[in-house]
């Protein structure tokens, strides 16, 4: 529950290894004795707890490729406590290029769309029941228009983005907010080895934009914010121009 200063008491991060997710946790206004629950693979409790000395950290070991075991995940996230903020921050970038289509499509759809969609639907019901809180789903600007280099990834993110955006009307009626965070290229573990293009950002910057947007109850958050204008233009640009942006 929120306290009188609007600080959060109980926050859950799905994707405990996500650089962006962890950065967001650091920027969120947290109450005293708050609880952070991180779900992910191979999480080291001591390492995570040392990053958040002022909160009570709980780790749930969970492989998001086994999304069918989602009920176990939610039974572990104690039903006694309300969730103030839930962040869906896990994903799979995979390989790039058209020749990866068949190899990659299963993984991309499973990890970047199906799994998060199932998770989101569970969270939606929880928040609809508790009638307060915020859900933040990290999608991507790659989902706005297909690009040659990452259209499979983009298609999955686009589907997830569409699902979350479609639910925003219903969430508003039930007094909780659902936001999508569309970062551009983020210099993180996921993009290690890739050459950062223009407008690339670091996880801290994304976290700042995300928290600012969350607190203002924005439906769509871009990071950096300028990508909103850039992609509005790109959305309508002709193919011969857009396709040059691999």
């Amino acid at each position, binding site marked *: *529950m*929120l*306290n*009188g*200063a609007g*600080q959060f*008491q109980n926050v859950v991060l799905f994707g405990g290894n996500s650089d962006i997710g962890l950065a967001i946790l650091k920027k969120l*206004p947290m*109450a*005293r*004795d708050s609880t952070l629950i991180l779900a992910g693979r191979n999480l080291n409790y001591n390492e995570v707890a040392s990053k958040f000395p002022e909160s009570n950290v709980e780790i749930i070991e969970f492989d998001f490729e086994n999304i069918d075991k989602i009920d176990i995940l939610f039974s572990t996230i104690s039903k*006694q*406590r*309300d969730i103030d903020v839930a962040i869906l921050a896990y994903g799979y970038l995979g390989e790039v290029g058209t020749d990866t289509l068949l190899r990659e499509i299963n993984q991309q759809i499973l990890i970047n769309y199906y799994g998060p969609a199932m998770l989101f639907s569970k969270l939606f019901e929880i928040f609809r*029941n*508790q*009638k*307060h809180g915020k859900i933040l789903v990290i999608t991507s600007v790659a989902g706005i228009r297909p690009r040659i280099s990452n259209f499979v990834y983009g298609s999955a993110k686009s589907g997830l983005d569409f699902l979350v955006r479609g639910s925003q009307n219903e969430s508003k009626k*039930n*007094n909780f907010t659902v936001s999508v965070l569309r970062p551009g290229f983020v210099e993180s573990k996921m993009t290690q080895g890739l050459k950062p293009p223009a407008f690339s950002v670091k996880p801290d910057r994304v976290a700042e934009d995300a928290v600012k947007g969350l607190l203002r109850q924005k439906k769509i958050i871009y990071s950096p914010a300028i990508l909103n204008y850039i992609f509005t233009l790109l959305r309508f640009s002709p193919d011969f121009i857009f396709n040059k942006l691999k």
Partner: protein
Amino acid sequence: MKTVWVINRGWGNNLFSFSKQTSNLSNENHNELLRRGVVPIGNGRSYGDSALNSGGDLLSSNNYNQIIINEATNTALVGSGVILEKLEQELLKYNLFLPVVPGTAQITIGGAIASDVHGKSHHHNGSFGDQLLKIKLLTSTCQELELFPTGEYANFFWATVGGMGLTGQILEAEIRLIKVENELISVEEQRFTNISQAIDLFDNFNKKFLYTVAWLDISGGSTGRGIISGGNHTSIVDCKKKKSEFSKSIKKLFLPKTLYFNFVSNLFIRIFNIIWYYKPKKRGLVEIRKFMHPLDAIPNWNIVYGRKGFIQYQFVIPTEQADSLQEILLILRTNKVFSFLCVLKKFGRHSKGFLSFPIEGWTMTIDISRKHPNLSQVIALLDERIIELGGRVYLAKDSFLTRKDLESMYKKLDLWIEIKKKMDPDTLWKSDQGRRLDIC
């Protein structure tokens, strides 16, 4: 029938819940109510989230509005939905009054019991719970229980008094009254320049007057000066000079809703506090309701803090820690906390409710705008110091405490939880505050 969900706010406008109102608890709706629980509500004067229940139900007491006065025994049987202001008006017709009334008369009797309110007479009369002869309570299994301060269900009684509505819905109460000869209070005021003078004055005033309270200036360099007020009921003889105002209702000023922005700036507070400190001291007869409830003259005064609202922080520290009041004022001053509404009072005995607030000692109440840039840090500092001094924070005003703070401040918390489990095995009675404190 369509369910209507509404936004409900605490009086401080700092927390709100999306809930639905329910007017009765029955076996038919019991299972549905268990989903997110129910909290009994009064007139919405709790400052924080004690009368909020996100996603759940608020159980109104409006139907319990009877007042039966027994002049022979000086008692009244009062429904929990009765507003204190109405009860006072009725009692004064019989030259009766409540021995304990809080600073506002806009609360219900149920709310007064659930928060175990206290008033200017605490050093003599204790808290509201001490005036109760009996409570009728609706339990989670739809039973109506009669609870008394002694006997078989005494633990249930004292868990309910100050229990913030989390043990059941109070339906009615039998309350002890005092005889008064008229509706006037003889008042005396004195200024003081620092907290040490205030402490000395309280010792004298508490001996001389039934009702005592002090207003403190909290504005930068002037922090710590103030005005102490003392009052006693008057005899018929004293009243000859002043015509009875009994038949007139108290004039009220409603602030326009368009004023819903925060004009309580530090400059405004400084100016207000200077004017208030130097206003002519009262000495004479004042209508009892004006003396007891001065802010009720502006019923919607809480909107002066604008949309962001404010918090009211009230703590008590043991008598022997009086010297630490200066330190607390220093914390406020160092952190640039300005307030035009800060009240100091010396409590008498400990209250018996397991979660009741008053202990023998010094209590201070401060209104702080939520626009203060370091609000949570200031509150954390104060909470930490209050705990070190053996004090506590009032749950009816609280919106920051954690379970760990509560355990440190309220030593009977475990006992209360044990009794709550007996009274409410399915955990039907829940509130947002209860969730935040992890006690329901």
